[in-house]
């Protein structure tokens, strides 16, 4: 049977296992929408803004490991998808964005709703395709999914001129058995010589640290990471993107590192003699001043992307390879090796870490503290949330202080459970991302922890949640300000709060939630917090928006001292350096 371009597309998507398309229609995409209507191959989720479509598809992807798909029209539809593409690109998320384009003969004529989507998105995609021949659509989809999901994953754009989905032009559905691209061979196995060298260094280390990032999640290698540390018993830290790859409850886990990392994690990095970096990229939010980074450490760096290695911090032992295979090779080598770990050294190293933890570690029992004031600390909201959800929720977040508090205080024991925009830091990500996660795991608890600033950037998606019955829970940590901005202004700009407050003009979030057909709850007193959260979570089939007013003066600590600081230089609380 011959098919139209739109039908070819839908069939190809179904063959890739696509369940949901997050999208928003418009002229250039209407042939495709007609195919969606007729074929019923995938469920279409109508968002309220294309940014929401990309974040929802992204959230779906981060939670499942399968590519999320967004569909937008040309022009403004395409440009609205740009922030979502950049978000996915920075965190290496396999996201597929299909954009309608004006008809081929109109391209380049400034026609209605024409933008050069391929050009605009070029620096923020792993790859992009423009459909020039309708019959290539199945092959392009196949290649797009292959590219998005293999190697270092990333977003792929497919731009389809309207005439290529003309319903009156029919073609045979044909695609190759498998993808073969001479210019793209992403599967790389670690070099055995490098594995040997790494093993030798690791086993003779006295102060080793495992520094694991989002690459371990993307490479589905958390089991291997845990297995490695069964052998080593070294302290482990995770990046913001890596939280969950190593169980937070494990005694060797030090918490997150970097800008707002724990004291012990940052101190351990600074004092390490060997750093085993796995699927992490020495982001500037980690290293602080690169020239002062971990002065005595030999760096072993495992990454699938050779360009990540020695980009910022020179690797003494680079290992280019899939994380899973590399860790397995390392584990086998360690088991075979005649060198034995210096358990005594390791023990005193772990004790040192414990001392650091004791000295300036995070207080995970703030919620138990009895105080006279009824003011709620934002940290306590996260701690209560952790208990209310038994630590089992999928948690998305936005960007700001609230995001850091979740990273610090919600203990993630499984990979993928923590969904946040770490690389780009996109406010507005949390709610749509939670929709994607909820669609993927409808029976699980999905929570979006947000701030009153961020939530207003994609608030319109509350309407989508009603339409598709997505009973997520939104915890709005309301400090009546762009809290993270204000923190920087407190610390670096003499407390001049330029354009970071708006307490007189905030919406009534309870009424707002209600007007979207959901439940709204407001908490202002400490005594009400636990009860309200419990009540919210007992309403299994409703979206509940919990607006929690918190102490607006809280800052996120620790915080690396910048500029010109190293990882050992931290603000530990207001005006106090460690």
């Amino acid at each position, binding site marked *: 049977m011959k098919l139209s371009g739109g039908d070819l597309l839908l069939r190809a998507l179904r063959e890739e296992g696509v369940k949901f398309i997050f999208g928003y229609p418009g002229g250039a995409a209407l042939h495709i929408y007609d195919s969606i209507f007729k074929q019923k191959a995938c469920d279409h989720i109508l968002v309220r803004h294309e940014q929401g479509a990309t974040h929802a598809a992204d959230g779906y992807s981060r939670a499942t490991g399968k590519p999320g798909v967004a569909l937008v029209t040309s022009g403004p539809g395409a440009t609205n998808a740009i922030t979502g593409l950049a978000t996915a690109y920075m965190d290496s998320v396999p996201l597929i964005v299909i954009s309608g384009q004006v008809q081929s003969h109109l391209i380049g004529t400034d026609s209605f709703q024409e933008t050069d989507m391929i*050009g605009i998105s*070029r*620096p923020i995609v*792993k*790859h992009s395709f423009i459909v020039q021949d309708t019959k290539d659509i199945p092959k392009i989809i196949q290649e797009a999914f292959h590219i998005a999901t293999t190697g270092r994953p990333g977003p792929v754009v497919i731009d389809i001129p309207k005439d290529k989905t003309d319903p009156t032009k029919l073609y045979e559905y044909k695609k190759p058995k498998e993808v073969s691209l*001479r*210019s793209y061979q992403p599967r790389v196995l670690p070099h055995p010589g490098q594995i040997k060298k790494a093993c030798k260094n690791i086993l003779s280390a006295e102060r080793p640290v495992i520094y694991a990032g989002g690459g371990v999640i993307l490479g589905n290698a958390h089991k291997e990471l845990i297995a490695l540390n069964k052998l080593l018993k070294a302290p482990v830290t995770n990046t913001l993107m890596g939280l969950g790859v190593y169980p937070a409850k494990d005694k060797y886990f030090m918490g997150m590192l970097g800008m707002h990392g724990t004291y012990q994690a940052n101190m351990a990095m600074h004092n390490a003699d060997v750093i085993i970096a796995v699927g992490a990229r020495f982001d500037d939010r980690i290293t602080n001043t690169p020239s002062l980074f971990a002065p005595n450490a030999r760096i072993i760096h495992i990454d699938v992307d050779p*360009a990540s290695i*020695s980009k910022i911090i020179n690797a003494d032992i680079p290992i280019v390879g899939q994380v899973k295979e590399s860790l397995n090779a390392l584990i086998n080598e360690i088991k075979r090796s005649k060198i034995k770990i210096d358990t005594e050294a390791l023990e005193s190293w772990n004790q040192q870490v414990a001392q650091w933890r004791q000295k300036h570690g995070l207080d995970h029992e703030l919620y138990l503290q009895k105080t006279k004031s009824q003011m709620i600390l934002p940290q306590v909201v996260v701690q209560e949330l952790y208990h209310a959800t038994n630590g089992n929720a999928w948690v998305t977040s936005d960007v700001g202080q609230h995001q850091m508090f979740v990273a610090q205080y919600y203990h993630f024991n499984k990979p993928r459970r923590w969904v946040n925009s770490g690389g780009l830091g996109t406010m507005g990500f949390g709610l749509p991302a939670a929709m994607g996660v909820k669609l993927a795991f409808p029976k699980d608890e999905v929570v979006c922890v947000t701030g009153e600033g961020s939530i207003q950037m994609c608030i319109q998606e509350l309407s989508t949640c009603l339409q598709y019955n997505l009973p997520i829970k939104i915890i709005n940590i309301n400090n009546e300000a762009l809290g993270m901005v204000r923190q920087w202004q407190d610390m670096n700009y003499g407390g001049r709060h330029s354009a970071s407050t708006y307490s007189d003009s905030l919406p009534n979030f309870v009424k707002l939630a209600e007007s979207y057909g959901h439940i709204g709850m407001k908490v202002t007193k400490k005594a009400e917090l636990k009860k309200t959260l419990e009540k919210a979570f007992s309403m299994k089939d409703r979206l509940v928006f919990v607006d929690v007013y918190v102490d607006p003066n809280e800052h996120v600590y620790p915080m690396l001292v910048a500029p010109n600081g190293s990882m050992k230089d931290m603000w530990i609380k207001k005006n106090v350096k460690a």
Partner: protein
Amino acid sequence: MKRIISILIENKPGALARVVGLFHQRGYNIETLNVGPVFDGSYSRMTVTTRGSENDVEQITKQINKIIDVIKVSDLTEGEHHEYEFILVKFIHNEKIQKILKKLNGKIHEKDKNAIVMSAWGTSSNIEIAIKAIGKANLLEIVRSGSIGLHEGEKVLKI
């Protein structure tokens, strides 16, 4: 330090823009750029010259390699290599310019009562010297092909 990077890239729409855009995104300058299809025409060979430290060039070749359409990348300056550049010059009758170009394999292609069109080729450093020596006087137009190059000896960049 000057670097000559050779790239084999799929002859597909937008592929060239991905390479050029990358230099800009990563904060490197392109000094010269040459590109054209080779062999069966399914792919092109690009030569890009840029300036940077060893680290810079390592990073940029890695980043170029990540472009999906790029088949192979090689930094010619890493080893011995051949490198030449071709120029076309239009100028008002002038002995000095003719002489300079003659020394660089110069050839006259057109001559009328006002102007001469000549070609010349040589290593880009010799081309640079010649361009400086020619100066502005009597010069009407000049166009450079940009460097092209190959590895010396047995080393071959090919798919």
